[in-house]
């Protein structure tokens, strides 16, 4: 009988690191990261800075690194600033996997994300279909945040390519601020009485945008990416048209697996040049964790607090 190889050494610790650590997008990611860790008998920790500041995030990354963990699952706020810290981590023997945002030029072993382009594309199809391929739409943006920009660009590109009668009538920056989104949608609705849909790449703006749409008589379909309890309620009430939501759980679970594998390359005897070249045989360059379409019908399954209650876990606090 061989001992179970899928088990951590005592003290083997895996860390997740993010910026704006207080917001809920990360919680399901960490939840599954933690579940995987527990199944392997490993320690896990959730770290990051509460602020939206790459400099501060790197400081927390460095501090986590100073404790020599086995691996770090990081969401690099900006890609290139993380090259040097990530490479330093790899050098000291800490495995690094990026999630939801990448640092492609670093030596991180894997990158796991949902496909932002696919999300934008899908959202565009859903909106256009509901409008019979004809009408006016607008987008709210958060210029400068990479994954958000990708979703918006894919949305617009898809409309142009596949839905020629869908007309883009306005772009406004809402910067994840519900009041700004509210004002922007009200103004857009004034300028374009026939506005039929508005897309935004995140959930914060959607609260304001949906309220404005509602006050405008409910003709405007609000489409977004990501969800939270409020958004789900509004989807169920028909005040929000729908959302594309990355599968955060898979992101966390697979993120852990990727780290663990990268940390234990000796589990396999590679049938390639890995040993000769020093390449990590257990590295998987890219994983797509997929996304879900949230609509009236399935919204109930996405509530985070209900999940926590059902599972009886303390979320990021353990």
């Amino acid at each position: 009988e061989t001992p179970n190889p899928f088990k951590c050494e005592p003290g083997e610790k895996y860390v997740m690191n993010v910026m704006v650590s207080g917001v809920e997008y990360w919680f399901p990611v960490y939840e599954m990261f933690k579940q995987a860790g527990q199944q392997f008998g490993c320690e896990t920790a959730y770290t990051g800075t509460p602020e939206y500041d790459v400099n501060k995030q790197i400081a927390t990354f460095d501090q986590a690194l100073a404790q020599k963990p086995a691996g770090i699952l990081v969401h690099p706020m900006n890609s290139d600033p993380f090259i040097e810290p990530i490479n330093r981590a790899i050098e000291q023997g800490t495995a690094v996997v990026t999630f939801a945002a990448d640092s492609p030029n670093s030596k991180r072993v894997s990158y796991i994300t949902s496909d932002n382009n696919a999300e934008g594309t899908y959202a565009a199809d859903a909106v256009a279909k509901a409008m019979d391929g004809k009408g006016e739409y607008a987008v709210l943006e958060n210029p400068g945040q990479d994954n958000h920009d990708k979703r918006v660009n894919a949305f617009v590109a898809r409309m142009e390519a596949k839905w020629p009668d869908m007309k883009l009538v306005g772009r406004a920056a809402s910067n994840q601020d519900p009041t700004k989104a509210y004002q922007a949608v009200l103004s857009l609705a004034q300028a374009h009485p026939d506005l039929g849909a508005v897309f935004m790449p995140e959930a914060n703006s959607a609260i304001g945008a949906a309220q404005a749409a509602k006050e405008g008589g409910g003709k405007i379909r609000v489409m977004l990416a990501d969800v939270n309890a409020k958004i789900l309620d509004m989807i169920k009430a028909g005040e929000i048209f729908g959302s594309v939501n990355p599968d955060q759980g898979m992101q966390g679970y697979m993120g852990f697996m990727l780290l663990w594998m990268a940390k234990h390359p000796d589990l396999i005897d590679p049938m390639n040049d890995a040993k000769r070249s020093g390449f990590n045989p257990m590295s998987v360059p890219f994983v797509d964790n997929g996304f879900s379409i949230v609509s009236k019908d399935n919204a109930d399954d996405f509530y985070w607090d209900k999940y926590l209650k059902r599972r009886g876990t303390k979320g990021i606090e353990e």
Partner: protein
Amino acid sequence: MREAGLIVIILALCIAMSFASPHFLTWGNFRAMLMSFSIEGIVVVGMTILLIVGGIDLSVGSVVCFSMVVSGALFLAGFDPWTASLIGIGVSALIGAAMGFFVTVIGLNHFITSLAAMVIVRGMCLVVTKGTPLSLFTLPPAFKAIGQGSFNNIPYVILIFVVVVAIFDFLLRRATAFRKVFYTGSNEKAAQFSGIRTKQVKFWVTVLCSTLAGLAGVIYMARFGAATPTFGAGMELNIIAAAVIGGASLNGGSGTIFGAILGMALLSVVTSSLILLDISVYWQDMIKGCILLAAVSIDHFLHRKKS
């Protein structure tokens, strides 16, 4: 009068816009603009009075959010929304009192005290919500009406805003108690030598500013039917900017509510115009900043000529 210059500038912008976009001079757009700044306008009132007394409050955004979050959490815990809101506003007042304590008793300045409060209160929002927006979908319609309903096609939000502004504008011009605010801000020592308890004055104005922020938070809750832990971040700069554009001095002693509201209106007209003109998002910030700078310069120039 400072206000005259601002009115001229705002009107000029509106006229220019009415040529550029047929939608600009409509009640719908006007209503949209008013709606977009009327809740923030309530916070501006408090900030202006605080600036007059020589203080500043960087924590207003956090306090707006905390009031929202506390009221929301209480509602979800079974309180009726009106009681919950009153408690939310009360808690905001307490935060103001705590800041007032640090300023008047310990002797810290308003800037650093309210900066710390901004961080602490934002943290409390996270603690209460555990980072997830509270969905207050079940708020009774009567309560939601505060934020979403209207009377004769005039939204209650705008009515509340107008009432608050009118009351405080009147009080600030006419009430004896508020005169002391000017004395204290103009020359604190001379105010003390006139028998005014300047610490008390500063304390209560600090409390007032937070209380109005709390009120705004509750109205936001009624409007959005949600309480988001990140709500209002960065709001303080916009609000201070409005008050300063409207003639409030950062050194205390001068400012009017009406002016500050005009400042807010100017910012709102500019933002709204850029969207109506369909300016590229990459250029919006830059143009907005330039218009702001130009407006303030022109206003300054008009003002200087007169005096």
